[in-house]
């Protein structure tokens, strides 16, 4: 094993996850391109990107169920390829698709995974009870998993992935397609786990969720565009955002697009966002434009950029989405 000595420090610095130039190619397509990240123990790390950005592939390689084409990864100091089986006792993984058996009940699924992880008989009932309570599934424990709602399925998936008290939890788009009420529930559970010291690696396409992570990696076409805390990421935003509310938002957006460049204007329902290098001059220009066109200005203010604004800004600097 020639590289171990060089990269072993991951074990010493106690990073829960560490990758070095992690790469995966599928004939011709590079799904993950030289990804280098590290996630500290007890951290909630969010990998954010659109479909096909490489989120799932990254997560599969970290969970030891897919081999990288190039580069390396360590989870809890263990090599993701050479020690892939040793990793599996200490991680919980929840795939994007519902990975449980729809024809088994909630309890049967839980017991199955408890057996697979070799959970001792003693204390097992308490552990399962606790997880069911934790995920609000107790009233449904005899229901077939296939008959649960989307949000409950996700919670059951989480409960099963937690049955062996893993140190690192991998969640692949856990809230995709789940309604807001269940999403809130789900995040509440994640924070509870974080308090117990579990490291959580989560992927999501929802940028508002990314804001809740300790650190966020923005991934696009397999490449990591940026990786930092949400607050620091927002520093990457070039310029400021003005939120403009008028009596005719659609026309306002059209006028602003003609006046400024296309990429800097966004229409969000009844509000228009304008990205401007200097908020002072931007505001003056917008106000005079509105009065010249006879559009009633209801309000204009500078707002804090959202992660989505940051993502868009970083992406357009990198040559656009396409």
């Amino acid at each position, binding site marked *: 094993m020639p590289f171990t000595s060089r990269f072993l420090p991951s074990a010493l610095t106690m990073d829960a996850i560490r990758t070095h130039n992690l790469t995966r190619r599928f004939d011709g397509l590079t799904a993950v391109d030289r990804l280098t990240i590290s996630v500290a123990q007890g951290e909630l790390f969010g990998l954010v990107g659109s479909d096909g950005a490489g989120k799932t592939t990254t997560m599969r390689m970290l969970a030891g169920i897919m081999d990288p084409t190039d580069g390396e990864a360590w989870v809890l100091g263990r090599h993701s390829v050479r020690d892939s089986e040793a990793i599996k006792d200490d991680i919980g993984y929840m795939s994007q698709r519902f990975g449980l058996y729809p024809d088994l009940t909630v309890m049967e699924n839980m017991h199955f995974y408890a057996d697979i992880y070799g959970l001792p008989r003693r204390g097992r009932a308490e552990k399962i009870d606790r997880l069911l309570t934790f995920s609000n599934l107790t*009233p449904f424990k005899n229901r077939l998993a296939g008959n649960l709602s989307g949000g409950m399925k996700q919670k059951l998936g989480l409960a099963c992935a937690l049955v062996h008290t893993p140190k690192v939890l991998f969640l692949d788009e856990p809230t995709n397609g789940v309604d807001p009420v269940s999403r*809130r529930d789900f995040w509440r559970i994640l924070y509870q786990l974080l308090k117990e010291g579990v490291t959580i690696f989560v992927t999501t396409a929802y940028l508002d969720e990314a804001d*809740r992570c300790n650190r966020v990696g923005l991934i696009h076409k397999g490449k990591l565009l940026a990786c930092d805390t949400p607050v620091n990421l927002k520093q990457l935003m070039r310029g400021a955002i003005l939120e403009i509310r008028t009596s005719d938002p659609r026309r306002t957006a059209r006028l602003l697009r003609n006046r400024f460049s296309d990429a800097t204007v966004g229409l*969000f*329902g009844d509000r228009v966002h304008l990205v401007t290098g200097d908020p002072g001059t931007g505001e003056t220009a917008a106000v005079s434009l509105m009065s010249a066109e006879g559009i009633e200005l209801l309000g204009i203010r500078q707002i804090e950029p959202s992660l989505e604004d940051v993502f*868009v800004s970083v992406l357009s600097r990198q040559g656009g*989405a*396409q």
Partner: protein
Amino acid sequence: MNGTETGYAVTLTDLSKRFGDFVAVDRLNLQVGRGEIFGFLGPNGAGKSTTIRMLCGILPPSGGSGTVAGFDIGKDAEEIKKNIGYMSQKFSLYEDLTVEENIDFYSGIYRIPAIKKRERKEWVIEMAGLREHRSSRTAILSGGWKQRLALGCAILHEPPIIFLDEPTSGVDPISRRNFWDLIYHLAGQGVTVFVTTHYMDEAEYCDRLGLIYRGELIALGTPEELKTHQMTEEIVELFCDHPQDAMGLIEELPGVRHAALFGRGLHVVVERAAAAVPAIERKLADAGYTAVQPERIIPSLEDVFVSLIEARDRQEAPQGEFSR
């Protein structure tokens, strides 16, 4: 286009659908004006897809009536199909065909007259920004492109109404913004857009919203109306370190319904903000939090959505899927 005397693109009167004992859609009443962007929201299994299927003439209703583009959804299902465009989250494109071949295929399906064919094809290619990729296999296109191509194919025959079922799920933010620009453009030309979505920020883009839950329409109005009139509770927003710990403390206070993480901060649902704000400030200060400035805000659509659903659950038996 198929103008209707009423000026409405969609009218529904007591529209219902039962599957055996299960009421999937319960006496839905709704009118959508021409050129309106109507957002249809609700959790999975609430009846969204069933309603859309009835509107598209694929599924006959079990009760009530409705018209789409002036045609009766019970009797004129085939006419409706000619007058609507439908695009689902699973883009119905053939991955092994090229962009042009996909467009040609749908031209055939919608029987676009030969003279118009070229023009419509160029229009779709232009709109989707696929000029340089017209001969590329669809499989290699990015999500945003596929989505615009699918939209183009769905409106080749220039329908007065289009139905979009979660059209932007999983697409990158720039493509999503571009997509919505297209939608606004179509609406500006008088096309009615009926869209379902899970993204609450996207719901804000709609002219009007309907929230369906357990088969019933439980709220209807513009985003502004929903945010200002629908909520009985008030929302307090605050930012602090370790919000997950603060949540627990805040929820112990009287008059607080619950707290939820919202972006970087917390949204606290309270009965009366005037009483809750000082209470929260005091409680967190005692616990050693500094620089917490709770303030009452206009609720987000997500707050409204959650609040309405929870209010509904409290009314009914606590056996529901979302009971806590």
